[in-house]
């Protein structure tokens, strides 16, 4: 509560109406996609279009799941996102701790460097990566794609973890060290448990970055490790424009993360605003 909250009834009513309108406008596209996925294939392209299905059917879902490679691509998406989250966390946690706790010249150079890396467009590093993964013998594997995705999430993870570590009072580690813990022991047994929430937030963002990524997946995967975003995009060329099956697959792919977001809402807001707002 601060000086910007209004208590006048008339303004509150107007603002509520504006907000409800905005949310309806904002929520409509996804609801429409949801409704479309339950229409019959014929009704999805009816002129004029309808909002609600006249007959509800799961036909589109059956078609989408039944297609070659769809189930496999889901498994690939999950494996890639989990691997990439792990890589990101294992590298970011110690690095961010090193940056925030010891404040060395190298640390400053490192954090600025990580931020600059965040600006590199994926198209720039994606093509040279093809050759690198070929030389490493891991072309077209989920592991290679997970590494590529970690190049996106790692700078973000370092940034997020740094802001969480900064909030931990140094006295905590001092106390642990007096009790005989090593520096690594202090990080592992004292600091990490305190910042578990922050680690969770960082993990969510790393997971989402990989789950929704498209360009690296397009450049680096063929049939074996293809993720679902590529399959969704291929629906339009391979099978003509089957909007029904496409919306069904898009719903299947989005709903898990939307539910995740609603459940973990508070953590996600904390992550989004960490670093941007220090107060």
């Amino acid at each position: 509560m601060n000086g910007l909250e209004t208590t006048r009834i008339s303004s509150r009513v107007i603002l509520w109406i504006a907000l409800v309108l905005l949310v309806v406008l904002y929520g409509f596209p996804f609801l429409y996609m949801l409704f479309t996925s339950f229409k019959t294939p014929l009704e999805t392209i009816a002129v004029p279009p309808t909002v609600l299905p006249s007959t509800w059917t799961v036909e589109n879902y059956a078609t989408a799941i039944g297609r070659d490679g769809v189930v496999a691509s889901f498994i690939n998406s999950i494996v890639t996102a989990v691997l990439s989250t792990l890589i990101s966390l294992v590298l970011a946690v110690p690095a961010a701790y090193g940056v925030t706790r010891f404040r060395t010249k190298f640390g400053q150079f490192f954090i600025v460097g990580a931020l600059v890396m965040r600006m590199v467009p994926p198209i720039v590093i994606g093509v040279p990566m093809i050759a690198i993964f070929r030389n490493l013998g891991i072309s077209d594997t989920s592991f290679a794609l997970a590494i590529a995705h970690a190049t996106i999430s790692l700078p973000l993870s370092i940034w997020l973890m740094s802001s969480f570590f900064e909030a931990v009072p140094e006295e905590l580690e001092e106390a642990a060290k007096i009790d005989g813990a090593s520096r690594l022991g202090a990080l592992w047994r004292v600091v990490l448990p305190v910042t578990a929430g922050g680690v969770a937030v960082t993990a969510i963002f790393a997971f989402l970055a990989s789950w929704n990524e498209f360009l690296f997946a397009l450049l680096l995967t063929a049939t074996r490790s293809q993720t679902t975003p590529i399959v969704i995009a291929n629906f339009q060329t391979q099978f003509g424009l089957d909007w029904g099956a496409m919306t069904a697959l898009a719903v299947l792919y989005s709903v898990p993360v939307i539910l995740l977001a609603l459940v973990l809402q508070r953590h996600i807001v904390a992550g989004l605003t960490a670093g941007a707002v220090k107060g």
Partner: protein
Amino acid sequence: MRLTDRRFAFFLMLPATLFLAVFVAWPLVQFISDSFFEISKFAGGPRTFVGLDNYIEAFTSGDFGNAAWRTLVYTVIVVVFEFVLGLTVALIFTALGNSSRVFRTIFLYPLMIAPIVAGLLWRFLLIDNFGIVNQLLTDAHILQDPGQIQWLSDPNIALFSVAIPDIWLTTSFISLILFAGLQNIPGDVIEAARLDGARYPTILFRIIIPLLRPVIAVALILRGIDAARAFDVILIQTNGGPQQSTETMSLLVYRTMVRFGDPGLASAMGTIYLIAMLAVSVAAILLIWRPGSENDR
């Protein structure tokens, strides 16, 4: 043997440094070095050093200048709409206080959706003949018939239309960051201005926005960088068309590299694009954010 703190910190950062060096810096170096070569489109083909030829070709080709301009326009459209909409929503949330909580949650959901899905979804919503948007606009008597606006097939407005999913996806990000920033504005400052008889617009432009500047700067810079790199959202909607009207830098580099098989030229274009983005970001950071100045905290 006991490590000094400095060594210890170095070893903590070493794995991440090596990872970024191998998988970001090294590909980046290769990409930039490619820009000085004429490279055959066939794997293992000849590679001839051509100096700055690719750069000259990039700057003299109309495609490159057009794509650069479109990238700028696209970024400005996205950032301006998101900022105005995001700030409005953040101010409404703040004015309604804690009771707006449920709505803040709902507002979050597009952030979780893949850009590829958002692009497809909006392409579906905006289709000329059976798209629901034109149908609803017609039902509301704003349009005479659903075919009147051809969102994605009219080259004059396509660049604006392809920006809609991006705006829809990430306005929430700006809203949430600005909302968090607004919570930190001391209430007594606003109260004092009210007592002095200041009206809302004055409070907004003279107090709120200046106080929020660091937060606004971070939000706009982050979003600006992302919008300037937008790829999948545009690719899935128009693939750069109609008549290249939505071909931004990412798409042009991709097309030159993958479709035309000219990695040398694509690398030169990409390198210029990268340098321009770095320069603009650094300038933006120095101009509006001013880290380290009295406004920082």
